[in-house]
């Protein structure tokens, strides 16, 4: 198979995978939104349902945790811990916190779906041999910036929500460190921006070629 043929096959496979990811993402986003909005109607606990949420924490400095006033529990338990690391299971969480969590996740979900949409459009153009176009260069730029900015902002939002979650659970005592997810999307985002710059050069070359008689 020629190089061009192999490239075409790879593009087709990539397009299928991205299409699947896109539709899965839309489905999960819609289902998640419906679940969060109609959560009280699905439980027998009325308008103030409880849920279990796990928050990853890591606190090498913890001397002790004293969970008190956890709503609905009616119990107080003293825990003396050292080098706490793992997951804190928060029980009896208000639905409003679940809703807030959904709102906190909304920017990341929207950015993810937009990025997949850009990638779908990009691959669709490449499939029909419209490779080095100004639109494709712009799409790559947007994907790069989404990764860079999202890689910084979304972990911070997640961190802020996790702190709120832990406080809402009524965990007192020594501060509990909540780990920030690594800013792992920033480096791939920078790489995509470099590729976008090279693509713009390719657009110039393509235009020269198209306007050569």
């Amino acid at each position: 198979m020629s190089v061009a043929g192999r490239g075409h096959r790879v593009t087709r496979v990539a397009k299928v995978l991205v299409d699947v990811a896109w539709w899965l993402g839309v489905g999960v986003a819609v289902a998640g939104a419906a679940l969060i909005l109609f959560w009280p109607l699905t439980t027998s606990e009325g308008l103030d349902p409880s849920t279990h949420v796990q928050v990853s924490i890591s606190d090498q400095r913890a001397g002790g945790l004293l969970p008190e006033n956890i709503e609905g529990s009616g119990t107080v338990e003293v825990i003396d811990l050292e080098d706490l690391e793992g997951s804190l299971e928060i029980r009896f969480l208000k639905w409003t916190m679940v809703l807030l969590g959904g709102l906190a996740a909304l920017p990341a979900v929207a950015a993810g779906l937009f990025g997949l949409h850009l990638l779908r459009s990009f691959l669709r153009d490449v499939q029909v041999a419209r490779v080095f176009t100004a639109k494709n260069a712009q799409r790559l730029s947007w994907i790069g910036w989404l990764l860079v900015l999202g890689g910084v902002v979304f972990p911070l939002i997640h961190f802020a929500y996790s702190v709120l979650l832990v406080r809402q659970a009524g965990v007192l005592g020594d501060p509990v460190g909540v780990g920030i997810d690594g800013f792992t999307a920033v480096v791939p985002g920078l790489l995509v921006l470099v590729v976008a710059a090279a693509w713009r050069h390719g657009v110039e070359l393509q235009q020269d070629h198209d306007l050569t008689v």
Partner: protein
Amino acid sequence: MAIRVNLDLVLVKRGMTLTELSERVGITLSNLSILKTNKARAVRFTTLEAICRELECQPGDLLEYVEEDGESG
């Protein structure tokens, strides 16, 4: 661009249409139109040779250098 293509003038002198020239030289009408309207960024020697052969002219009859202020060179 400072290079002006005078293809339309030469076609009129020879009494030939762009479509006819396209069929004779084997270049698409859209490409010849790009050339005629001064939108081309480059011309291949093979294209220039084919056009000059059919129009019985010299490259200098087709291409003209024009100063930026509009005076011909």
